[in-house]
């Protein structure tokens, strides 16, 4: 399995461990998280509570940045700056959700490739 992908990277994980079991565990945990986050964002698009959005962003930020998910960093930083729920913000949320949905099956494929 390659550490580098077009949309994300496992470099960070490989940097801290060469134990495949650990890598596997972290990737599957990440898949679970992005699934959850995509769901949360979906819900937020309806409730439109800025405070809750910020919380979710804070929650997902460390792992998403560590996995170097392409495009996510910029979106997260912009969302952090937001103080009103506007159209611009809605667009960013939608984009982020889309990224998560897009990388999920790719990572799942990586997992089957990763022998442990």
């Amino acid at each position, binding site marked *: 399995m390659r550490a580098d992908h077009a949309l994300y990277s496992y470099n960070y994980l490989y940097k801290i461990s060469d134990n495949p079991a650990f890598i596997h565990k972290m990737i599957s945990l990440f898949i679970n998280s992005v699934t959850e986050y995509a769901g949360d964002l979906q819900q937020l698009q309806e409730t439109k509570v800025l405070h809750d959005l910020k919380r979710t962003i804070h929650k997902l930020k460390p*792992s998403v940045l560590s996995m170097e998910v392409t495009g996510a960093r910029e979106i997260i930083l912009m969302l952090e700056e937001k103080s009103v729920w506007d159209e611009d913000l809605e667009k960013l949320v939608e984009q982020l959700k889309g990224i998560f949905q897009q990388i999920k099956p790719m990572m799942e494929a990586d997992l089957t490739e990763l022998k442990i």
Partner: protein
Amino acid sequence: MLDFKIFIVEDDKWYGNLLHHFLSQNPDYEVTLIGSGKECLAQLHRKPDLITIDFGLPDMNGEELYRKIKQAQPNVPVIIISAQEKITTAVDLLKMGAEDYLVKDENTQQLLWKAIIRLRENQSLKNEITQLKAELKTRYDYSTSIVGKSPALQAVFRLIDKAAGSMINVSITGETGTGKELVAKAVHYNSNRSGHPYVAVNMAAIPKELVESELFGYEKGAFTGAQNRKTGRFEEANGGTLFLDEIGEMDLNIQSKLLRVLQEKELIRLGGNSKIKLDFRLVVATHKNLADEVKKGNFREDLYYRIVGLPIALPPLRERKDDLLLLTQFFLANYCKENKIPEIRVSPASREKLLSYNYPGNIRELKSVIELAAVMSENNVIEPDDITFLSGNNHDVDTVLNTELTLREYTRLIIRNYLKRYNDNVLLVAEKLDIGKSTIYKMLQTGEIEGA
């Protein structure tokens, strides 16, 4: 060393596992990942050594959890880890006593790693300091329990310090009641063996035939009546200090056995055959002049040189009258404290009286004189009449006459003594002393003397 227990409270499983993996690389750390604030509080009974909390937990925020942890366990260090860089929150938490505040980024693990190492260094430093303080305290306590400002006693203090700071044998000489035992204890409890046993054996108090088994111990069946194995006092003192009091009373046979033990640093229990390693500091005391005893052939010369080590000679009380009033205050204060009564003063005339006496029983005698005077005193002042020097029987005519008392005091003393001897039989005492019985009755009535 025991494992260092770390709780990681983090609801983001990905991040939590990352920290867990990272910290578990140190085999000394026992790391537990906990998903919520409530769960953390429920686990506190496991007494973690460190808790890291994620600031943004779903069930309670970091500050709330921090407060609750500190309520339950005020001393446990807490490190806050947050994805937020909101500096005011950080400052507030640090002010509240949080150990550290880390922002989640690619350096967090390294920072956490370093923070833990720093924390543990500080803790071991703190432990060391408390330990040092405790030691200092006992040292200090000892120098306050041995009272004296006279140059003679100051010299003794310096010798105690020297002895305590080394493992040298110590020999203490001085008349009865000068504080030999007190000094022996001070040497032990100020030494770095203070955590080990202090074993005191008074050679004058053990029947001659039992001395050997008492010191060496015996195996089961070593002699008739040896139903169980008994460890001797030498062995009991292992690692610590053996105090042989009244060493001058030890008979020559035991002296040679003691010498062997000191030379070989090992012994064989009576009736046994295996050698037991010994390691103790020997402190001996005697009121005799051992060098004279050596000349007289009562004490082995070779043993004398072995045990003499650092000699500490305690001056008799009459040679350090400058300490007398200090000691008087000390014993009085202790007496009042123990009996929970208000402070008792010593009138100037009483002071004169106390200073005029020569105290053959030294400090032990002064102590009982003062305690008796405190009992006799009224209105919290000790007057000369409250002071009685010789309560009885173990003092000879010589010391009585060497004491400067008024004739009336002598009379009182003698009558008291006789009353005691003849069970308060006033008629008999009057007859023996050839005085009128009314003299005695009058003194009893006025309280000048009490019945036994």
